[in-house]
């Protein structure tokens, strides 16, 4: 770890510490893991390089996650829209999923991850996709359409307070605020 410490300039490191919820060790570990994803010749300047989405998804922490594509999409700042990640994007992601992030910011990003079509609300389609991710995509694990309908109806009845047929961010955060487990389960640690 000492070797990689010298690769991030000191002031940059302290800046990262200030802007994210991560500790110095976590940042250094993230740097190490991130540069391992890069091809050898690019490792020298890992801070400015971008890692493609397929590379990011080889991380064991994300490999099996059913929301992996959404996570990449939400945290990527790629200009071409290919969901590739820079080191700072990577740190952003780890910061949100870290232990010390507030549950406010966690729920904010959880909402964005669950918002599959990026329209700022969770509508029926989003919920359907969410449930499919939760139960797995296989043939036998899919819910029947009647069950799905019923389930989404239940979800909306409980959490859609203004009765507009969708769940918005504050409604979502309200649901999350009543689930004390959320902060401990919405967590990815390297």
């Amino acid at each position, binding site marked *: 770890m000492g070797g990689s410490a010298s690769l991030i300039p000191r002031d940059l490191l302290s800046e*990262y510490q200030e802007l994210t919820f991560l500790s110095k060790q976590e940042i250094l570990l993230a740097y190490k893991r991130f540069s391992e994803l890069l091809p050898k010749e690019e490792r020298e300047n890992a801070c400015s390089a971008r890692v493609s989405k397929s590379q990011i998804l080889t991380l064991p922490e994300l490999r099996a996650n059913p929301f992996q594509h959404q996570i990449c999409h939400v945290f990527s700042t790629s200009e071409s829209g290919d969901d590739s990640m820079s080191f700072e994007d990577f*740190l952003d992601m780890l910061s949100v999923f870290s232990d010390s992030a507030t549950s406010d910011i966690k*729920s904010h990003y959880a909402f964005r991850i669950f918002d599959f079509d990026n*329209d700022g609300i969770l509508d029926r389609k989003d919920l359907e996709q*969410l449930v499919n991710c939760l139960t797995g995509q296989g043939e036998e694990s899919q819910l029947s359409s009647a069950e799905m309908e019923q389930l989404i109806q239940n979800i909306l009845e*409980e959490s859609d307070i203004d009765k507009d047929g969708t769940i*918005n961010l504050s409604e979502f955060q309200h649901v999350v605020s009543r689930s004390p487990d959320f902060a401990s389960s919405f967590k990815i640690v390297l």
Partner: protein
Amino acid sequence: MDFLFCCLHRGSSQRNRFSHQTPYDSSLHGSSGEHRGREQNYPVAIPMASLGPGSDYSQDLPRTGPYGNFTDEPEPEETYTPYSTFHMLDYPYIHGISSGSEEVKLSGHVCYSDSFIRRRNRRPPDEIFSTSSSMFETDPVCNEEEDLVGSLASMSTNERIKAIQKMPETMRKKREIRNKVLKEITKKSKHRGAQSTQCLQGAAVVSARSFYSSLSSFPLQSFRRFGNTLSECFHQLRLWHKTLKIIGAEFGTSVLSYFVFLKWLLNLNIFSFLINFGFITIPQFLAAEPNNLSFTGLEVFTGAGYFQQTVLYYGFYTNATISKVENGPSYNMQLAYIFTVGIYFVICFLILLFSMAKFFSRNINSQTFSVNASKLLCTWDFNITNEKAVKLQQKNLHTQIKESLTEVNKEVQNFSVMERVARIATHLLAWLASLGTAVAACAAVYFLSINNLKLFMKGYRNDLESQAVMLVLPVIVSLLNTLIPFFFSWLGHLEKFQTPGQHIYVTITRNTILKMSIVGILCYYWLNIVATSESQCWETLVGQDIYRLVLVDFIFCLLGSFFGEFLRRIIGTTVCMNLGLPEFDIGRNVLDLIYAQTLTWIGILFSPLLPGIQMIAFFIVFFVKKVTNFVSLMRNCQPPRKVWRTAQMMTSFIFLLFCPSFLGVLSVIGVTVWRLKPSEECGPFRGLSSMYAAVDEWIQILQSYTASKWVVWIYHNLISSELFFFILSSVLLVVIYLYWQIIQGRKTMTELLRKQINNRSASSSRQPAQEVPDYPERAFERNQNSSYNELWSLAVALPVDLVFALRMVTQQCQELQQHQHLTFGSRAICPLVATGALEGLSSNSRGLSTQEGAGQALDTNLHIL
């Protein structure tokens, strides 16, 4: 009053801007501009929308993509401006509440989409650039950004760092905001003509960062650096980190919490071992007498024989004052013994208390969790990364969803009188049976132990037979502890509880009763029978008993996890499938841990090195349990089902550890130290009337020295004075009562807020969508929206602060003023009204809605005036 007035005043003048934060802060901390004292968890009220459109770099914002349709929106300026001042929590809500009004809906979209787009802002404007909207919004939004920067600049360093961390923004955006804030600070300090101006000139922007770091107060910085180095050291030592991560990744958070608890106990034992070893054992080594007993190997199990003359037991310790140098500093063994144990228990008490309080406060809301389906929204455990485990979790969720769907469809069962009577009778019978078993187990243990003592006293030999006899008691106790829980769970199945939660809690209660009564009867035996027997050194006997119990319990735990979990899983999955797949029973396993820890605590006084043995045992249990769980995962067994909720689990574990276990141990230790007569011929307290008499003697000695008069004074006036404790406890009672009242008030407030949300949602769903033609009316609606939003975020931020509650009431007041066209002219009346309203809320009108309550209070206030 002043405070309320301030609240109100600020609240009204800044109603739109920062209305969540500023009045609250400024009223609390005066006008110093320091935003200190906000709790960390409280959502930082930074108007996020202000960061959005129109800030200097989002001018090149491509307003297309998923949100592209908004570019055609007519008159965007009208709909934008008001919402850009909303709290980050709020703006999406506008969309929700005005479900019918198309324009408002769109603006809600835009505001939210801004926050979404912001991330994409940096993608080049490869799409059409919408002039109309961004031109219009530039001005107000710039102001907003300035406001944000200003408010950040006026915070203290720590606050600011936290606030920036909490922004749901990308790194680059956060950095930009931070740099702006730093510039602002530099500017300000220049204005003030601070001394640092000169050295800053010319390099203001470039060196902003370094200046910033020098600005932050020095001690804080160095403290932080020290903390960093410390955590760096710990990071190297953190063997657990990886193991726990793997466990979390494979078995999910609920099993992880068992291991976290185990690790917590392990650390506690390491700590107590170090304390005891350092302060009791090492000095004893210096004064040790040679041990002339032979070691045969069987002693490892019985703890007797050779070990009797080692530092393992109380009896070996000397009562002398140890000093290596003549007339040099000496070490009083008696005092060391009693103070080490005493201070250790005080520290344990504090640790337990604080961790319990921490967990309690963390899930204070959890009792109100009544929703089921929406739980799905936050149910995914992102810790799990093992592919097999992911599949299993998905399968579990799938069956859970199906079960809950069928449950919803089922009619609520109505029982006839006969059925109900039968049900109650079964419960009663089951309770009788379980209590009867517990009593029977206790009686068995009691008679066995008395018999054991007789045998022991009769032939005090070291042959194989007597040693085997010694092991009978612990084996029987462990057998009872292992087998009776199976009987209890069988009883539970017979009873047919309505919910699985009930089943689990009843089973756990019964198991706790069983274990604690067995420990209780053993304590009675030790303190009342062994202590009065004519054995040479009863403390050592007790210590040996506890040693054997701990050891046999550990062996049973290993056997249990091997046969009960490991083998059964293999048989259950390969040979006979109808046995079913056993789950990892977290409740039972945790109770075993608590039982072992209780024994260790009792044993500390009689066998100071017991924590060391327990430490090794826990360490082995940790890895054995990990392996059995791993095998079960590989065999596609079920991970534990939903019934245990992670956040509540740690709370109840620690509560169980505290309430029957630790408090019981404290009373046992108390009786031993104050009441019982130590043995005459062994141990540090030989010859004294009680262990505590050592402290009394010490105080007597201290009285002759003038330098230590204060110790004597403290002892007489505080520690041994009833009056002091009387005053202390009455003060405590008063404080507790006050807090209790505050909690009651908050509960009422929470109820009201909830009711109000429900009312509003009901009314909003009742009202059909309608177009709002002219502007003033729309403004009114927006006002409604904003107060609704405020209410909403209050509910999100529950538990509410009292200040919050007050603010809410104040706002209610203002609303009333507007709605009823009251012409009070002066605002000075409002504090009165607010307090009246609060009184009305908390006392009379619990059942009434807030508006009515406030109205009543308003009326009474009018009368007063």
